[in-house]
């Protein structure tokens, strides 16, 4: 094994790694794709929504009918949940479910083997059950060019001209240590827990009023995260639904709240129960999501080294986009390696095209645009408590008929809202939120 030298080693067969491997292999590079699970996706979790634009970029003749996708998302929305109440804003469009499809729900243990299989079909070699423990550098110099990886398999060293690390949120220990501001902090990640609940294909369609094959994806906001900065989610799969919640790890720890208790609270909300009742929970899972965004970006390239996907923190948590950032970054990383092979320069300078093209793409443009959003929301817990409650009070006033004149009730409502938050502060909060969301 040590004698083989590849053009490219890709660490991690998730969306970023598989995308990188398939593009590089199609360009004729000798690629090995390493996966620590016994099959791709076996250790991976996401909500999860997978985006059409990224799949079409990765697979030129992409046909959704040939892929293990759960449902084509026709409706997306935000549910503002408070106490027993729900204020729902959602948008359903048949256009989103028609080609070119906007997004799909997926289950990673089904999707990833197929997606990584595209890399194998393109000629990449996949090694599963292989955990990478570190990078190999030229002359064992800790700052030297990366020339391969160390794995925990017998004779497990592998050599290559370039290494793309796409091994998820924990990257590799030495890369975490080398981040510009040090290792990830608990306020830079969200811990999400999820259950997959089996209902049957027809029942999912019936409960969510969906046409066959079409799906829905709802983000759950409000006091459902018990005042902690975070979000819940409810997504339809083919014959199951995914329900879960994620909150900033530092805040979860400070609250002393257990993540499965948070999930219990979500599942017991009166708005959500009817969607879950009578179903069988078939799996429970947990995952850490990098949410530092633009402020937490590591070095994207080193000599012989590129970092993609969650390993580089490429998640737009405000828009719950991550799988598409992963795929796009994997493809662009592969492009840089293909270019470096042509020029014979796989130093950081030779690979610099990756950071440049990523910077021009939606990946870094969007992370830059939303760079203030997460810090702002975390510093303003009233968006996870007070404001959802005020929204419910306002909705009450709109929808309740009490026999009292409307003008009189409007005055009472305004007085109540003023009592809970001064108009000046509310204006300042909303202005701050608007600014944070608009870069």
């Amino acid at each position, binding site marked *: 094994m040590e004698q083989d030298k590849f053009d490219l080693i890709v660490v991690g067969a998730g969306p970023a790694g598989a995308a990188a491997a398939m593009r590089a292999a199609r360009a004729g590079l000798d690629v090995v794709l390493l996966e*620590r*699970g*016994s099959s791709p*996706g*076996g*250790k*991976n*979790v*996401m909500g999860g929504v997978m985006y059409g634009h990224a799949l079409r970029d990765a697979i030129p003749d992409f046909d959704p009918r040939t892929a293990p996708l759960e449902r084509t998302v026709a409706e997306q929305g935000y549910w503002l949940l408070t106490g027993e109440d729900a204020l729902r804003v959602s948008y359903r469009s048949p256009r989103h479910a028609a080609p070119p499809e906007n997004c799909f729900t997926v*289950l*990673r*243990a*089904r999707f*990833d083997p197929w997606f990584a299989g595209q890399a194998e079909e393109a000629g990449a070699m996949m090694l599963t*059950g*292989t*955990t990478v423990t570190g990078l190999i550098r030229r002359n064992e110099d800790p700052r030297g060019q990366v020339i391969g990886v160390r*794995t*925990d*398999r017998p004779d497990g060293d592998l050599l290559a001209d370039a290494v793309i690390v796409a091994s998820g*949120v*924990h990257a590799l220990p030495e890369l975490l240590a080398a981040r510009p501001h040090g*290792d*990830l*902090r*608990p306020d830079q*990640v969200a*811990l999400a*827990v999820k*259950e*997959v*609940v089996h209902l049957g294909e027809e029942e999912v369609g019936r409960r969510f009023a969906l046409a066959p094959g079409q799906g829905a994806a709802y983000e759950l906001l409000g006091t459902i995260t018990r005042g902690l900065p975070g979000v819940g989610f409810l997504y339809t799969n083919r014959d*199951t639904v995914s329900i879960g919640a994620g909150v900033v*790890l*530092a805040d*979860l*720890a400070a609250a*002393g*709240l*257990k*993540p*499965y208790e948070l999930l*219990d609270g979500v*599942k*017991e909300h009166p708005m959500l*129960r009817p969607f*879950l*009742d*009578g*179903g*069988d*929970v*078939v*799996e*429970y*899972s*947990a*995952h*850490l999501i990098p949410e530092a965004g633009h402020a937490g970006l590591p070095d994207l390239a080193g000599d012989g080294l590129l970092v993609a996907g969650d390993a580089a923190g490429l998640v737009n948590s405000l828009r719950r986009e991550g799988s598409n950032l992963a795929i796009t970054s994997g493809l662009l990383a592969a492009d840089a390696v293909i270019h470096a092979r042509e020029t014979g320069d796989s130093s950081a300078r030779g690979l610099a095209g990756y950071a440049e093209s990523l910077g021009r793409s939606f990946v870094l443009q969007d992370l830059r645009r939303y760079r203030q959003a997460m810090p702002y929301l975390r510093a303003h817990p009233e968006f996870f408590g007070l404001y959802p409650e005020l929204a419910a009070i306002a909705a009450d006033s709109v929808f309740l008929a009490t026999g009292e004149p409307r003008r009189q009730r409007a005055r009472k409502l305004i007085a109540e809202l003023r009592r809970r938050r001064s108009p000046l502060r509310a204006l300042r909060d909303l202005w701050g939120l608007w600014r944070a969301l608009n870069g």
Partner: protein
Amino acid sequence: MSEDNRSPVRRMTVADRLFLVSFRPAHESHLRAKDPGLCAECVGRPCTTVCPAAVYEWLEDTDGARLVISFENCLECGACRLACPERNIDWAYPPSGHGVTYRYG
């Protein structure tokens, strides 16, 4: 809350939930407290609350006070690594071929 036993919304314990996940435990733990003394002094012990699989438990009995680490239930999320205020958890993925395998993910 209703008393309806048929509903999945009835409270599940962590053990109920972990029963739904397949594990292939390694012989040795991939998680370790670097300095057990720090755990004894730790305020709040966030590892015992944030872990989605309740891997960490602080036990005080006739054998003394100690952190019990049920590594075989680990979902490999790594929350403990970052939540530990002393960065006292020696954290790694389990060796190849071991640990959690999701069927849905």
